[in-house]
C-alpha cells in the first residue's frame, strides 16, 4: 500500500484491506500494534497528513465493517482508536511527540509479540521439534502474529508437517499373541526376530523398511528372510520357545502369496508403533518415547522423531477434530424429530446398497477407511469405528438395527391406517384413522393431505330471528356440527336474494347476531362447518326481512290533544298511525316525524305507530307497530289553601283540610326545605317526586290524614296524568307527643309524670277542673274539628295553661297541679317548639283524674258524765248518703287499719250526710283507738286528726 500520496477511496480500501485488515484478521482479529501500519501513516508524518490519513483509514474501517469478516476487527480498531484519540488530536494540532512515542512503543510491542509467538512455537515443538500446521496456525492466531510470520520464524528450527498416518489396527489379527511370544522369546521387536543378529544399525520403518546389515548390505523383509529364520528355528530342539517362535512365524507368513514385503513392513511398523503407544499409555514422556524408539527398539532417529510425533498427535483431541455422527445417531435424530418415514428410508438405504446409498460415515472416507477396506476383517475396530460395518449388507450394528426395525414397524402400521382411511366412507372415522397414522409417522406421505380434505358434518339447524330493540338485529341460533373429530370451525355468511354457496359467497357476519342487517331486503344466512381445508355443506336460514319499527316513540297527552314523536327508519317509506276506535282502528294523519290530533279529555286512547315499507313490487307493507296508550286530561288545579289539624288523628298523624280541586288528585308531600316552585305552577310529577318525600296519605271525608314523621314543609300537590300542580304549603314542626302520661291524685294535688320525647325541651300543661269545664272543652274541640268554630271561641272552655321546661320538670320531680279532691280534672300535655318565631304546640296527650266523693267525720264526746255518748258527725260538700258506716274501737297503741281490727261500736247503712250518729261512749280500760270505716265504693271517708281518734290511758 502506498503511503505517500492520497489514493482514491476504492483503491485505498482494497490496498488497506489486503495489507492491513487481512493480516490482522489472519492473526485472530488482532489489530496491528504498529500504528504506522494500522493507520498507514507516512514515514515522516506531518500534522496534516496524519489527520487526513486517520480520517481516510476510519472511513475505510466503516466501509469494511459492512463485511461480516471484518466486523469484529473493526470494532476492536474503533475501540482502541477511542483511547488513541488524544494522540491524534495532539498531532492534528501540530504536536507529533505523543504520536512518535506511540509509534516507537508500537514497534517494541510487535517485537515482543513475535518473541512470545516464537516461545510458544518452541514449546509446542518440544524435544522432537515438530508441529502440525494446525498447531502453528493456532499459535499464530492466539499470539497475534500471522501464520506466515510464524512459519518464517519456525523455518530451520521447527519442522511443520502433518503427522504420519499410523495403522490403527494390526495388519495381523492375532498380533497380541505374536507380541506375547516375542516378549517370551526376549526379542525387542519383530525386526529383531526376523533379522536377529544381522541387524547392523538403526532401522527405518516409515516410508518402507530400511536397515543395514552387519555386512553393510541392506536387509530386506521378504519371504526369504522369513524362511531363513524359520529354518534357524527348525534346527533347534523343540521346546516352549519353539512354539512361540512358530506363532511369530505364522504371523510373518500370513502375507505370503500377496505382497510379502509390504505385509512384513506393515507388521514390523505396527509392532514398533504398538510398543510406542503402549509406553505412551503408561505416561511416558516425549523424551522417554524418543529414547525408547532409538535405543530400545533400534529405530532410526529421524523415523523415531516422526513416530513419536505421530503417536503423540494421535492422543491430541484437537488434532482429531469433532466426532462425526454415525448411522445410529442419524437414525435416532430422525426418530426423535418424528420423521419416522425418513428414518425408515435411511435404514433401508443402509441395508440396500446401491448408487443412491448414503455415505454411512463421511469421516470414514479417509485413508483409515481405505486401509480398513483393504484389511476387510476388522468390523470390531476401535476408536470411532463403532459405527462402521464390515461390508454393505444386512449385517448392521445392533443399535442401528433396532432403530431401523422400529422405524420400519411404525411406517408399516401407519401405512395400513392410511389405507383404511382411504376406504372409510365416514369422514370423521377416516379423520381419526389418519390422525392415528400421523401420530405414529408424522411424515407419512399423503396422510396429512388426505386428512385436510375430509369435511365435517354440516350444522344441523339454523334459526334466524329479527329483533328490533334497541336497534334492528338478526339473532342466529344453531346447533354445532355433530363432528367431534378435529377442530371444527364455523363461518357465518349473509347474502341477499339467494343462499350463499360457501364461506366466500357473501358477507361474513358474527356467529350469533348480525347487528347491521340490510333493511327491507330478503336475507339468507348460512353456517358452514370447516375442518382443515374441507368445508361441510352450508346450512341455510331465510329468507328473512328486517323492517324496523319507528324508534323513540313518545305520545304525550295534553289538554284535549295528543301529540306523538318518533324517529323514522330511513328505509321506511312513511309512518302510519292508528287509533283504536269502536272496535276497529282509525288512521290518524301523521308526518314522518310526528303527529298531533284533538281528542276528548278523560278517555284513554290507544295508538299504534307503524313503519310502512315498499316491497320488490312497490307495494306498501306495514309493520306491526308500536302500541302506546295515553289519557289526555285537563291540567290539574292547585289546592289554594290548606289548614292543618294536629289533633284529628292518632299519635303523630295530622289532618290536612282543603277544598277539593276541580281537576286532579290532591296529595300531600313533605319537603326538607321550603319549596321554590310558585303556587299554581304545573310541573312534571317526576320533579315533585324527586324533590319531595312521599308520606302516608289517608284520604278522609275531611281531608287527607298524613303522618309526616319528621319536620319540614307540607305541600299540597294536585296530580293528573304525569303533571302536578303546586298548591298551598305549611311549615310542619314535628312534635311527637309526650309518652306514658301518668296522673295520680295525692290528696288535693295531682302528681303528673310523663316521658319526654328526645328532641322536645318544653311542654305545655293545660287542665280543666270540674265537670262543666271538662264538658265545655270537649264540645269546643268537637266544634273545632268539625270546622264550625275556631279554637278559643268558647271562653268557659279555656283551660289553665302553663309552660314547663324539661329542666323544671326534672327539678320539681314531675308536675303538681292542685285540684280539689271533689273535682275531676282533665290534663293535657303537648310538646312545644318554635318555628319561624312562632310558638308551635304539638298534639297533646290527655289524662283525666276522677273526683273523689269525700265525707269528713268527726268524733265528739257528748252528754253528761253519767250518760256520755260518742257522736259521729258527718259532713260533705253536698248532701249524699253513705252506703254503710262502721265505728270500730281498737284497744292498745295501734290505730285500726281495717274494720276487723277492733270491735264494732256501731254499724249503719244508708247514712245521710250531713248527719250525726250517736253511740254510748265506750269506757275500755287503758289506751284505745276509734275509727270509722265504710265499704262504699264511691264514698271515701276522711279521718279527723289522729289525736281525736286516739284516747290515751
Amino acid at each position, binding site marked *: 500500500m502506498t503511503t505517500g500520496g492520497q489514493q482514491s477511496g476504492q483503491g485505498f480500501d482494497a490496498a488497506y484491506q489486503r495489507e492491513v485488515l487481512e493480516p490482522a484478521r489472519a492473526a485472530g482479529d488482532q489489530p496491528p500494534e504498529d500504528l504506522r501500519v494500522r493507520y498507514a501513516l507516512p514515514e515522516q508524518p506531518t500534522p496534516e497528513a496524519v489527520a487526513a490519513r486517520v480520517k481516510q483509514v476510519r472511513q475505510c474501517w466503516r466501509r469494511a465493517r459492512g463485511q461480516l469478516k471484518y466486523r469484529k476487527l473493526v470494532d476492536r480498531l474503533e475501540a482502541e482508536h477511542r483511547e488513541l484519540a488524544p494522540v491524534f488530536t495532539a498531532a492534528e494540532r501540530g504536536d507529533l511527540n505523543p504520536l512518535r512515542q506511540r509509534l516507537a512503543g508500537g514497534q517494541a510491542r510487535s517485537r515482543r509479540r513475535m518473541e512470545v509467538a516464537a516461545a510458544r512455537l518452541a514449546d509446542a515443538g518440544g524435544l522432537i521439534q515438530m508441529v502440525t500446521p494446525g498447531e502453528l496456525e493456532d499459535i499464530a492466531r492466539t499470539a497475534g502474529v500471522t501464520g506466515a510470520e510464524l512459519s518464517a520464524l519456525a523455518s530451520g528450527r521447527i519442522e511443520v508437517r502433518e503427522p504420519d498416518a499410523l495403522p490403527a489396527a494390526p495388519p495381523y489379527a492375532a498380533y497380541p499373541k505374536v507380541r506375547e511370544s516375542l516378549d517370551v522369546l526376549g526379542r525387542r521387536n519383530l525386526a529383531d526376530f526376523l533379522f536377529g543378529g544381522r541387524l547392523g544399525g538403526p532401522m527405518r520403518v516409515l516410508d518402507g523398511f530400511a536397515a543395514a546389515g552387519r555386512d553393510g548390505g541392506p536387509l530386506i523383509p521378504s519371504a526369504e528372510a522369513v524362511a531363513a529364520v524359520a529354518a534357524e528355528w527348525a534346527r533347534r530342539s523343540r521346546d516352549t520357545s519353539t512354539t512361540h517362535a512358530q506363532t511369530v512365524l505364522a504371523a510373518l507368513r500370513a502375507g505370503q502369496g500377496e505382497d510379502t514385503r509390504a505385509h512384513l513392513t506393515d507388521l514390523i511398523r505396527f509392532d514398533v508403533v504398538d510398543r510406542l503407544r503402549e509406553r505412551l499409555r503408561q505416561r511416558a514422556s516425549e523424551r522417554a518415547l524418543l529414547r525408547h524408539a532409538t535405543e530400545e527398539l533400534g529405530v532410526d532417529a529421524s523415523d523415531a522423531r516422526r513416530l513419536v510425533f505421530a503417536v503423540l498427535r494421535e492422543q491430541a483431541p484437537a488434532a482429531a477434530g469433532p466426532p462425526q455422527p454415525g448411522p445410529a445417531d442419524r437414525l435416532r435424530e430422525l426418530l426423535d424429530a418424528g420423521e419416522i418415514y425418513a428414518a425408515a428410508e435411511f435404514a433401508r438405504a443402509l441395508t440396500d446398497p446401491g448408487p443412491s446409498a448414503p455415505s454411512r460415515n463421511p469421516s470414514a472416507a479417509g485413508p483409515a477407511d481405505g486401509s480398513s477396506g483393504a484389511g476387510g476383517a476388522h468390523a470390531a475396530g476401535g476408536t470411532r469405528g463403532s459405527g462402521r460395518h464390515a461390508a454393505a449388507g444386512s449385517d448392521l450394528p445392533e443399535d442401528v438395527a433396532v432403530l431401523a426395525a422400529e422405524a420400519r414397524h411404525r411406517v408399516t402400521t401407519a401405512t395400513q391406517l392410511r389405507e383404511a382411511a382411504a376406504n372409510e366412507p365416514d369422514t370423521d372415522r377416516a379423520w381419526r384413522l389418519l390422525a392415528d397414522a400421523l401420530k405414529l409417522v408424522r411424515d407419512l406421505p399423503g396422510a396429512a393431505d388426505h386428512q385436510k380434505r375430509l369435511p365435517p358434518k354440516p350444522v344441523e339447524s339454523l334459526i334466524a330471528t329479527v329483533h328490533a330493540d334497541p336497534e334492528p338485529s338478526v339473532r342466529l341460533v344453531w346447533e354445532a356440527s355433530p363432528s367431534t373429530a378435529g377442530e371444527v370451525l364455523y363461518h357465518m355468511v349473509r347474502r341477499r336474494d339467494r343462499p350463499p354457496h360457501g364461506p366466500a359467497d357473501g358477507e361474513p357476519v358474527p356467529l350469533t347476531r348480525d347487528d347491521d342487517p340490510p333493511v327491507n331486503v330478503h336475507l339468507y344466512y348460512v353456517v358452514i362447518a370447516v375442518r382443515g381445508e374441507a368445508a361441510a355443506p352450508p346450512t341455510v336460514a331465510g329468507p328473512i326481512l328486517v323492517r324496523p319499527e319507528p324508534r323513540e316513540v313518545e305520545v304525550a297527552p295534553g289538554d284535549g290533544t295528543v301529540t306523538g314523536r318518533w324517529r323514522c327508519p330511513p328505509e321506511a317509506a312513511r309512518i302510519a298511525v292508528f287509533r283504536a276506535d269502536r272496535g276497529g282502528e282509525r288512521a290518524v294523519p301523521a308526518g314522518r316525524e310526528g303527529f298531533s290530533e284533538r281528542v276528548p279529555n278523560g278517555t284513554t286512547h290507544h295508538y299504534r305507530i307503524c313503519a310502512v315499507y315498499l316491497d320488490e313490487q312497490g307495494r306498501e307493507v306495514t309493520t306491526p307497530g308500536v302500541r302506546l296508550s295515553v289519557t289526555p286530561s285537563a291540567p290539574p288545579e292547585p289546592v289554594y289553601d290548606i289548614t292543618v289539624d294536629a289533633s284529628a288523628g292518632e299519635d303523630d298523624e295530622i289532618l290536612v283540610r282543603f277544598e277539593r280541586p276541580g281537576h286532579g288528585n290532591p296529595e300531600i308531600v313533605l319537603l326538607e326545605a321550603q319549596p321554590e316552585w310558585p303556587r299554581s305552577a304545573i310541573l312534571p310529577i317526576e320533579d315533585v317526586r324527586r324533590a319531595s318525600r312521599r308520606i302516608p296519605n289517608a284520604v278522609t271525608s275531611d281531608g287527607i290524614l298524613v303522618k309526616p314523621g319528621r319536620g319540614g314543609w307540607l305541600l299540597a300537590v294536585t296530580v293528573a296524568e304525569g303533571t302536578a300542580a303546586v298548591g298551598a304549603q305549611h311549615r310542619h314542626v314535628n312534635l311527637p307527643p309526650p309518652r*306514658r*302520661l*301518668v296522673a295520680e291524685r*295525692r*290528696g*288535693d*294535688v295531682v*302528681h*303528673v*309524670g*310523663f*316521658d*319526654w320525647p328526645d328532641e322536645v325541651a318544653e311542654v305545655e300543661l293545660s287542665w280543666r277542673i270540674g265537670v262543666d269545664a271538662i264538658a265545655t272543652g270537649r264540645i269546643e274541640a268537637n266544634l273545632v274539628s268539625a270546622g264550625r268554630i275556631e279554637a278559643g271561641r268558647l271562653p268557659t272552655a279555656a283551660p289553665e295553661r302553663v309552660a314547663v321546661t324539661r329542666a323544671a*320538670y*326534672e*327539678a*320539681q*320531680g*314531675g308536675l*303538681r297541679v292542685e285540684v280539689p279532691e271533689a273535682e275531676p280534672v282533665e290534663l293535657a300535655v303537648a310538646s312545644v317548639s318554635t318555628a319561624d318565631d312562632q310558638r308551635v304546640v304539638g298534639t297533646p296527650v290527655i289524662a283525666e283524674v276522677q273526683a273523689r266523693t269525700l265525707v269528713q267525720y268527726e268524733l265528739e264526746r257528748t252528754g253528761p258524765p253519767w250518760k256520755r255518748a260518742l257522736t259521729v258527725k258527718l259532713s260533705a260538700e253536698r248532701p249524699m248518703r253513705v252506703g254503710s258506716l262502721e265505728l270500730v274501737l281498737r284497744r292498745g*297503741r*295501734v*290505730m*285500726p*287499719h*281495717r274494720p276487723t*281490727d277492733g270491735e264494732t261500736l256501731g254499724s249503719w247503712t244508708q247514712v245521710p250526710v250531713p248527719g250525726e250518729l250517736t253511740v254510748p261512749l265506750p269506757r275500755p280500760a287503758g289506751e284505745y283507738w276509734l275509727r270509722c*270505716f265504710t265499704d262504699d265504693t264511691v264514698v*271515701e*271517708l*276522711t*279521718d279527723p*286528726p*289522729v*289525736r281525736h281518734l*286516739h284516747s290515751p290511758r
Partner: protein
Amino acid sequence: MSLASRVSLPGLARQEITCPYCFVEISPQRIPFRCRGQVGRRQGCAPVLDQELAAYTGSTAGASLPPVFAAPPRSGGRADCPDCEQPTHNRVCPECHNPLPTAYCDSPGRIVALVGAKNAGKSTYIAVLLHELMNRVGTELDTSLVACDDRTIERYKRDFARPLLEERRLLPTTASAATAPREPLVYLLTRTRPSKLARTPLAGMGRAKHDALALVLFDTAGEDLRSREVRDLHLRYLEAADAIIFLVDPLELPGAHNALADEAQTREGTLGEDPDSEPINIIARVTEALRLRHGLRPGERLPVPVAVALTKIDALGPAVSRQSALHRSRSGSGVLDLDDRSAVNEQVRALLHDWNAGQLDLFLSQQYADYALFGLSALGSMPEGDRVGAGGVRPYRAEDPLLWLLHRFGMLDGD
C-alpha cells in the same frame, strides 16, 4: 314519739365539734387554720403536700394545699398565718385536715346517718333527698344546700345525680366500706326564717334570721350492717351520728307480701332467708353500738332522734286504705304539719303491725326516746328493669324524715 314539743337534744348542748369526715371530736378552740395561700397577686404561702389529707383521701391528688397552722382564733373566727401573715378564715380538722366550714364550727353540726339493709334504697334516697332539698323542697322551706367540699360535689354528681336523674338508671349497689374507701357527703343547709314581725304591719322592720346546719350523709353499704365486725370497724360515724334515718324496704317484710301490688311482687326482696338482713336485726345492732357509746344503763332510752321510713310505698298499692294519709301529699308549706305527721306515723305503725312487724315498732319504743315512722317513695313508681319507671323520678314524701329532723333540730316550725 312525742310530738308535743321539740326536745332538747344532747348534741345541742355539747361544746365539742365532731369532724364530719373522720368523726373525731374537736374542741372549738383547737381547730387549726389553713393559710389562704397565693391568690392572684396577693402574697401567701405556697402549696405543700398535706400528708394528713392525702392519707385520708388515699391519694396525693388534690392534696397540695397551703399549710395548716394552729392558732387561737381572733375575733370573727380569723387567724393570721405565721409565715405569710395573711389572715384566713379557713379551718380544718386537726386530724384529717378536711375543711370545716365556718358555719359548721359556729353552729351545731348534725351528722345524719342512713342505715338500711342491702337494696333498701339508701343511695337512691340520698340522691333524691338532696335533689329535693336543692329544688322543690328547698324553695318551699327557703333553704339553700351547699356542698362543703369539692369531693362532695364531684361524688354527688358522678355517683348519684348523673346516673339516676339524668340518665334515669337505677343506682348500683353501694360498695362495702371494707372494699372501697368512702367519704360522707357534707352539706351546709342554711335556712332563712322570716322575722317574727313579718306577718304584722311592722314587717319591714324585722330582720330575717339565718339558721345553718351541717348535714352529713353517709351512704352505708347495706352489707356493712350485717356483720358486727365490719360495722364496728367501718361505721364510726354511726356513733357520731346526731340523728339516724333507718330505711326499711317493705318488700323485705314477709308479712307485707300479700299487700304488694302485682308488679311489686315480682320484685320481692332479694335478701331471702338471711336473718342478718332483716330490718329489726340491723336496727338492733346499730342500737347496741349507740348504747355503748352513750353508756346508757338498762332501761334508759337513747336520746338520738330516729326516723324509720318505709321506702317504695308506691309498691303497696291497695294495701293502704283509701282514707290513709299515705295517699295524700304532705300538707303545709314551710312548716311541719303535725297532724299529717301524726297520721302518717300511726298509719305506718298500723301497717307494721298488720304485717306482723310490730316487733320493730316495739323495739324502737323501748330503745329510743324520740322516733317517728314514715312512708316514702324516692322514685314515685316502680322501676322498669334497671331503669326508672314512666315519668322519671317523681319523689313522693321523700323529704318527710328530714323535715321532721329539722323540726327536732329546731330549724322548722310545726303547725
